[in-house]
């Protein structure tokens, strides 16, 4: 597989891997049938992402995308995290092979799910865009 050095770095030494007990929001996307599942745990303090962890079942690109995405949103406001695009994740990884772009998409979706999970728990309207 033609992965950049950055993808390989995040794949072999993933950042923020694990789970958060009593997290404020959880997002899980993908399914085992397709071979990719991404789960994001958020700890939120004063509308900021105080901590984030991930668990991923999937290929090298999926794991690297999770690692990079969590790095990119850590410490950011919810709104900034929401605006993280899959393209930004892929770019931060110095690119992904075209057939692996959907992995960065999963990261974006998992973050959206986790943020909305938090909003729902707070009794707030989930965001749509």
């Amino acid at each position, binding site marked *: 597989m033609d992965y950049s050095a950055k993808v390989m770095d995040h*794949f072999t030494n993933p950042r923020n891997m694990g789970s958060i007990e009593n997290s404020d929001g959880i997002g899980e996307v993908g399914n085992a049938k397709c071979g990719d599942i991404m*789960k994001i745990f958020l700890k939120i303090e004063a509308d900021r992402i105080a901590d984030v962890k991930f668990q991923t*079942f999937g290929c090298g690109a999926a794991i690297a995308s999770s690692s990079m995405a969590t790095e990119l949103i850590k410490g950011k406001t919810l709104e900034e995290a929401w605006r993280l695009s899959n393209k930004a994740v892929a770019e931060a990884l110095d690119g992904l092979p075209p057939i692996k772009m959907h992995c960065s998409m999963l990261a974006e979706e998992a973050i959206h799910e986790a943020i909305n999970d938090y909003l729902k728990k707070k009794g707030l309207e989930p965001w749509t865009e």
Partner: protein
Amino acid sequence: MTVENTAIYMDNSATTPVRKEVAEELIPYLIENFGNPSSIYDLGKTSKDAVENARKKVASAIGAEENEIFFTSGGTESDNWAIKGIAFANRNKGKHIITSSIEHHAVLHTCEWLEGQGFEVTYLPVDKYGMVSPEDLKNAIQDDTILISIMLANNEIGTIQPVEEIGKIARENRVYFHTDAVQAIGHVPIDVQKMNIDLLSLSGHKFQGPKGCGALYIRKGTKIETLLHGGAQERKRRAGTENVPAIAGLGKAIELATSEIEESNKTLLALRERLIKGLLKIPKTHLNGHPTQRLANNVNVTFEYIEGESLLLLLNAKGIYASTGSACNSSSLEPSHVLTACGVPHEIVHGSLRLSLGKMNTEKDVDRVLAILPEIVQKLRNMSPLTPKENRTL
């Protein structure tokens, strides 16, 4: 470089290195004996002799006659020629073809293409070990069946089909029988007479010959169309200047591989069993394929909760070269059609690993793989949201 740092190649079903004896055999035909076998002068005759000498060796390796062996560009061409050639030459007799659901794509996609050309194809199911049932085959034969194409041994899981029985059924029903023996050569003794095989595909690079060269055995009297039209090579049945060096190498390689079957299988079998035994000690690990009716060099396991590509990448980082049944590296993301046909649940089908052994592998290699793999599997399981608590260390 110390031994510890040497890479371990366990992907011999993908390809094998050319043996020294084979390289020595073929090199003169690249340099000094470069003549075209169709030329009438002595230099051409030297090349022609090399091709015919190789043909003898291939014929003798499978119990065929020399004039029943045709050199091709490899397994894919041989499969295409056999299936399309039989289909189009016998279409007035019938349009029904029987194959199995675990064939190599060179067979499956050829059959699918033929469906678009008005042929009808039955894809036989397999049991959980990847075995075709002769009873199912008998029941699938129709009045208009013209070809049965069932592989000798599977490339992913190594399951060896009851080819002799299949051949007998084909013969009794007067249907042509083609077998893709690409993975079997050098591992399973083959006799096309005893096994009633009418067409057989083989590929040089799977048994330490060069890449890009294979052969198709066509039983004398078989009605088959030509695939490649052009010059009069291969008795006017396969046009194109012969790949003389590769053919010479293939001849040498098949001679060595088939004469050493017994000895090599004994060594490989011991390594295979050691590897399987060690792998199954990893919790939530399952063996794919048949426990005994399998190629001596094939190991295929599924690790629950993890995905194959990430496993291969981590193995690669440790200098272990292997492959997976998972097609995550293709654009389709479809899991292995072989494992799916064997009924491996789709939740775990992505976590499969194929380790295919070869001449270079030693007991030490097996032990090193067994020392490294559990850590890698655990690392990925700790990362996976599917892993239950009891299978986590983090």
